[in-house]
């Protein structure tokens, strides 16, 4: 029982990170119908920025802020320079360009920081607190939940309560009509990429200090888990991405805790295949007329 509670809470904490990362994928997918396979590499690049700035200034929070700013810039540059050119092309082109970006980013990071694992400490203790004999969450887990919750609230407010959010939603769903109504659709897409890059960077900042260590390919497995989370929720739904992330996190925690930790990528694959075959639109998809 003790173990079950611990694994569940631990899984929810990991799931919160997957949820944030899946949210980044959903943001770009909704805006441009592209799955950004380079999301992981982009996030790692910004965590390296955080690492450098933190080491130079001795402050975790300055590094944190620097990573967010770097993510916004990176997202904007990639959208303007590369992603925009494949937007109207077949899906293959966008995927290939994203893979090119992954290789390029990982290679450049390897050149600058070498391919060795770097230690990047968490800002709070990772030792789990106990209450009444039960092992519960660590302060760092609470920090993760707090960040993801704030992020969700801010994004919800942005999309539902502000004119900017309305324009972004409009350009995603009806670009032609929005253009006629005077919305700068291209700028909204850039903004979508910026938002997604920032959200992805946050996920990277939260997950890398825990167990992975900083490495150019650190987010590869996280990307697969987050893609699965996004698919579980349906690529179109931010709420689905969050729930999907929590489901994936808890599932992996159980598989890792009760079966063996090596098998977690297989569990991700199994979940992805089952969801895609049974409900390709995601578990929370509302039935809708098929677009041709």
């Amino acid at each position, binding site marked *: 029982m003790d173990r079950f509670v611990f694994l569940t809470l631990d899984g929810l904490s990991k799931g919160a990170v997957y949820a944030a990362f899946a949210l980044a994928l959903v943001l770009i*997918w909704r805006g441009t119908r*592209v*799955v950004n*396979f380079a999301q992981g590499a982009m996030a790692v690049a910004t965590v390296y920025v955080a690492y450098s700035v933190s080491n130079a200034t001795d402050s975790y929070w300055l590094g944190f802020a620097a990573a967010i700013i770097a993510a916004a810039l990176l997202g904007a540059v990639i959208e303007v320079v*590369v992603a925009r*050119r*494949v937007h109207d*092309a*077949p*899906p*293959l*082109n*966008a*995927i*290939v*360009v994203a*893979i*090119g*970006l*992954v*290789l*390029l*980013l*990982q*290679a*450049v990071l*390897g*050149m*600058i920081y*070498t*391919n060795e694992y770097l230690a990047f400490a968490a800002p709070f203790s990772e030792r789990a607190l106990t209450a009444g004999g039960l092992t519960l969450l660590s302060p760092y887990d609470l920090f993760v939940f707090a960040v993801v919750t704030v992020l969700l609230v801010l994004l919800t407010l942005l999309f539902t309560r502000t004119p900017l959010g309305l324009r972004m939603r409009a350009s995603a769903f009806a670009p032609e009509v929005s253009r006629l109504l005077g919305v700068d659709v291209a700028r909204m897409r850039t903004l979508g990429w910026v938002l997604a890059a920032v959200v992805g960077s946050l996920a990277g900042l939260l997950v890398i200090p825990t167990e992975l260590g900083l490495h150019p390919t650190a987010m*590869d*497995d996280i990307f*697969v888990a987050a*893609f*699965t989370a996004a*698919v579980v929720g349906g*690529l179109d739904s931010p709420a689905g991405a969050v729930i999907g992330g929590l489901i994936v996190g808890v599932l992996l925690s159980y598989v890792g805790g009760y079966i*063996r930790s*090596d*098998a*977690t*990528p*297989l569990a*991700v*694959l199994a979940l*992805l*295949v089952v969801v*895609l*075959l049974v409900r*390709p639109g995601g578990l929370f998809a509302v039935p809708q007329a098929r677009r*041709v």
Partner: protein
Amino acid sequence: MVDTNGVPSSATAPGDADSTENTASAENTETPRPAASTVPGLVRRAGGAGAPPVRRGNTLLRHLLIAVVIGVVVVIATYQITPFRNYQLATIGAYLCVLPGLILLTGFNGQISLGHGALMACGAYTVALVQDALGGEAQWHLLVSVLSGVATATVLGAVIGVAAARLHGPYLAGATLAVAASVPAVTTTFDGLFGGDAGLSFAMAPAPESLGLYFPFERWQAWLALLGAGVTMLLLTNLVRSRFGRTLRAVRDDEVAASLAGIHVARVQVLAFVVSAAGAGLGGALFAVLAQSVSPGAYGLTLSLNLMLAIVLGGLGGLRGALWGAIVLVALQPLADAATRGFSFSPEVQQRLDGTLPLAVFGLALIVVMTTAPGGIDGLVSRATRRLGQLGRRSPR
């Protein structure tokens, strides 16, 4: 647009569909024929610019002749080069078993797979296990193990293909990416069978004594790999020029139109996946034969991504892109080494550039090719030769 068998097309007018030639090639390629269109005009138009020009005569026989000629030239060449070059040639040969199938799947049928590294791993591990079980002393052991490698990869490909036929674009890419990423997990989870991270190594018979006492092993490996490449290329060039090839393109271009024309879309997609999986299994088996060992590190996500970028750089328009892609994959590392050595960096910088520079070049090349010249190297080359040909034809008049 693209001539798939490397012969200059001049003999007959394009678009002159000859039904006898079509049926002959379809029978000769020994593939299960799908319930194809009863409206050939629709299929032909859907094939569009991707359809190769039609020629008279027996396609299989002509391709066989070309293959034999190329084979003789290559065998002579293997005597002229060093063992290291022979090993590189063998690697190109092994890639040439995988890449044409992937071009058939992605270029001709429009399905994206980032998981062919896993299918190669399947072929490679089967070779290692079967070689171990048989002992590996005799030549027929190798034949049996390579064939079983192809068979298991084909079965796995059929399983993935059934799932893939229901998925589109990024969903398919993500699902196959997950397959590729799970290879190391499979080998460590079942480490009793697959040897975990260390992998398996196996014994292999040397070159037959009839070839001479001092026949270099690398040359023998090159022969084996190139034989595999030749068989793959021969079968696939015939396949893409058959009725099945046109069905593939019809499904790629418009699934609704294809199914209206009586094509069983899902069946065609699964078949395309199975064919490309067989090629991947053969390629993986030959990689195992080249290294005489298998380990999860060699068949991870990186391999799958490399395969994808090889066919994109080589060109998705025709099977010839596979040749360019294989050459690029093998040549890039030595070229990058030469480039960094030319600049005499400090040892520390040198070490940082060692593994990363080829990756950076690859990544950049992918982005540039995809955004500016989606035809890849093959597209550029055939455009250049066509322009030269036009110049040559125009000047005498």
